């Protein structure tokens, strides 16, 4: 189908605030970093500056608000502290970054099994250079944001590096908190998780603003699940309402490994999330979950890609959006089955709950199947709360507003129930509730 005709936008700077002098001063702040790391960043900056901003005719930006993507008005913030309460879950270790700088690192020593590394990227660049080189932003950018991913690599200040050695299982999650503070702050959160053979780990990333300022967030997480590993990742995004946010996920699933990821999105003015799962070896399973509560004029733009590269792999995606006010959501998901990936079992579902007259949900569920012996299905629905269910609750004396809230939470519970960790489940539910009460 032809793309909508492009409206001519005023020419915008392809680098915006992120001009070369800002990059130079950023490099200057990394005096202790090894040369290869700086070279990598320089190359990334060149790539960022050389690529154009997305255009309306780009298929991978279909339905996105291109005009909202301006990179002007941001700067690299000074280090700061925060008085925000930590995310309410118990953890085996936690790191807190404010404005790209580690302010708190609490590895509860007794809880962290021997050999597990939970450290910063800065330290990893020195002490675990080989692992970092192998896994940091190593996967292809296939979902449209090569430019912003390069921006992330160029400006990433610090982030979390997690390595779980072979056979080690962690009972409690590792918590990584990323905080933006001060108007105009640009942050580049990063979390890298390497789960080696038959290990088990759960990592929670939170993204919050310390104030209601206009922030720019451009984050990434790299997840690698080795042979037989079990990796759970939860991202809770609650940036300020004035934040322009990009988040890039890459998940690599090796033989018989299982990865579950759940992204909860409530914050930001315009938030784009790209998630790439590569099922590289037989027996791999990737479960991709997302919950989004969109209100006022928020735009949530989610792009996913499930690539089945080996036989007998499985993926299961469920993205749910609840839309209120004039909010917009975009879900664009693609399942790709390579020619050799026989016996693929892939599922993809996008459910939109329309809670206002002016909300807009866009769905682009896609399939590209090149193997023969596969089972792939996808579905998308957009509908309001079922009036019959609403009536049933009302007939039991529940007010309409309360009934709607109950039913909306029921809509989310289907996803939250897939989490094993009860505490995490409760914390995410509370975050959704806060978002609902804000009105």
């Amino acid at each position, binding site marked *: *189908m*032809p*793309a909508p005709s492009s409206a001519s936008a005023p020419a915008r700077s392809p680098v915006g605030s992120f001009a070369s002098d800002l990059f130079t001063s950023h490099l200057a702040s990394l005096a202790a970093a090894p040369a290869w790391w700086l070279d990598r960043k320089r190359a990334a900056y060149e790539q960022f500056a050389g690529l154009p901003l997305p255009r309306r*005719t*780009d*298929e991978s930006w*279909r*339905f996105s608000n291109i005009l909202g993507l301006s990179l002007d008005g941001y700067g690299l913030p000074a280090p700061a502290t925060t008085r925000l309460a930590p995310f309410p879950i118990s953890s085996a270790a936690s790191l807190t970054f404010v404005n790209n700088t580690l302010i708190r690192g609490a590895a509860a020593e007794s809880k962290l099994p021997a050999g597990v590394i939970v450290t910063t990227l800065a330290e990893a660049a020195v002490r675990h250079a080989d692992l970092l080189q192998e896994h940091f932003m190593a996967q292809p950018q296939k979902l449209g944001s090569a430019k912003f991913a390069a921006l992330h690599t160029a400006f990433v200040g610090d982030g979390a590096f997690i390595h779980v050695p072979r056979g080690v299982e962690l009972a409690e999650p590792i918590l990584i908190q990323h905080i933006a503070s001060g108007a105009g702050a640009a942050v580049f959160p990063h979390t890298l998780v390497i789960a080696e053979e038959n290990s088990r780990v759960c990592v929670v990333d939170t993204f919050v603003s310390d104030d209601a300022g206009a922030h720019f967030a451009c984050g990434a997480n790299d997840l690698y699940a080795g042979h037989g590993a079990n990796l759970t990742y939860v991202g809770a995004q609650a940036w300020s309402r004035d934040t322009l946010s990009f988040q890039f996920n890459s998940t690599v699933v090796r033989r018989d490994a299982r990865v579950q990821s759940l992204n909860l999105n409530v914050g930001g003015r315009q938030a784009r999330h790209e998630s790439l799962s590569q099922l590289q070896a037989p027996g791999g399973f990737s479960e991709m979950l997302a919950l989004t509560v969109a209100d006022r004029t928020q735009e949530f733009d989610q792009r996913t890609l499930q690539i089945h590269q080996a036989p007998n792999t499985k993926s299961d995606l469920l993205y749910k959006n609840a839309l209120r006010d004039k909010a917009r959501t975009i879900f664009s998901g693609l399942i790709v089955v390579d*020619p050799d990936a026989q016996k693929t079992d892939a599922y993809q579902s996008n459910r*939109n709950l*329309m*809670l*206002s*007259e*002016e*909300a*807009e*949900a*866009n*769905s*682009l*569920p*896609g*399939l*590209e*199947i*090149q193997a*023969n*012996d*596969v*089972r*792939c*299905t*996808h*579905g*998308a*629905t*957009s*509908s*309001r709360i079922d009036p019959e269910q609403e009536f049933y609750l009302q007939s039991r004396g529940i007010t309409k507003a309360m009934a709607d809230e109950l039913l909306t939470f029921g809509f989310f519970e289907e996803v939250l129930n897939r989490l094993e960790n009860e505490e995490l489940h409760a914390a995410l539910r509370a975050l959704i509730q806060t978002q609902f009460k804000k009105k």
Partner: protein
Amino acid sequence: MNPLTDTETLPSPDVDETAANPVAGIDQTRGDFKYDVAYEFDAGTGLNEKTIDYISDVKKEAAWIREFRHAALKTFRAKPMPTHWATRDLENIDFDKIRYYLAQGQKPKRTWDEVPDDIKKTFERLGIPEQERKYLAGVEAQFDSEAAYSNIKEIVSRQGVIFVNSTEGLREHPELFRKWFGKVIPTGDNKFSALNSAVFSGGSFIYVPKGVKVAQPLQAYFRINAENFGQFERTLIIADEGSEVTYMEGCTAPKFSTSTLHSAVVELVALKGAKIQYITVQNWANNVFNLVTKRGLAHEEAEIKWIDCNIGSRLTMKYPGVVLKGRKARGEVISIALANDGQHQDTGAKMIHAADETTSNVISKSISVGQGRATYRGQIHIPKHLKGCKNNTECDALLINTNSRTDTYPAITVRGDDNYVQHEASVSKVNEEMIFYMQQRGLTEGQAMSLAVNGFINDLARQFPMEYSVELKRLIDLEMEGSVG
């Protein structure tokens, strides 16, 4: 589409075994023949302003049409090939090597006796005159750029139904047709609608007066006979308030070593309470680029239904659409695509909801065989403030043999909380145990595949008029027989 020369051997309609015989001996090359024809009018090779003036001159067109064509040529040149979302195979079309207008004359004959022998024998071989006698209300048979034959049964014309070609429609009935011509599908809708608008010739212009229900289908048959040729028919059907009409089109071409282009524009207008059913069985030779724009405008309580079967061609890109303009309008697309070796069926549907309580339904089934590729693209749009709109979309793809490919790319936009949209799609392989089961009953692998495929589309094929579902089944049998072992 292949013609229905075997209708007399059909089982009686009270038996549901229309799909009985998967091994009927069919002439696989029925459309693949060619008689030499001396063309009186030839616009030459390549496309420029002179080509357009030539077409306009021979058709003795009004000035506004000539201007319309010239403006469209500019639009065509300005628009890029849509390869940013579509296949790069489009780049293999060489517009400079195509002949844009070939005809023996501009006025179609009203009786088969008057049709020149060299053209008549083509249509006789395809069985058109015979079908006309049997069950059609009217027939237009286009040979390259112009209709060689066009006739409507007297009983239908007496009801005020107009069934003419595009040239005649615009010349003789401007008050009816000019109002809607190019309005449902504007010239600039896409590169190929612009190309058609520049060089269109042939096609049907139909008007059904208020309350008239045309009992039998009107049929058009499109034949490409010349090599390096482009066929650009233009069809406009207007069903006035409360009227009903069914239109069927078929097509064939001989297989040439060079590629051929077919690029039609079809506009349907269903006024209040009218019903239009438009059926296509596309069986172009597999060197034909079939790039067609089809859209209907459904007014209040009107219904437009596209039934679209794509069996032939090298590349088909076609996404029939309905703009649901009036309250309670209904739109439907039923689509079947079979992509065999060397074919790419890129089909789908577009439903634009523009009024309250409008409903749309899309059911698409595709079969990819061997190296064939099937793609579904859909667009469902429900804008702000609409109430009570519903869409249901189902896409199922069946894969046979190893190298086929299937893609599904729907796009759904919904605004507001009082509308309901549902999309489901699945891709699966033909079940090996099922094939073995059938082989154990004595069917060859090809026959078993053929039955499996016919079973897969059976619920859709049932919606076709009887003659068409039989024809479709035969075409599928042919394709499947050739594809296995």
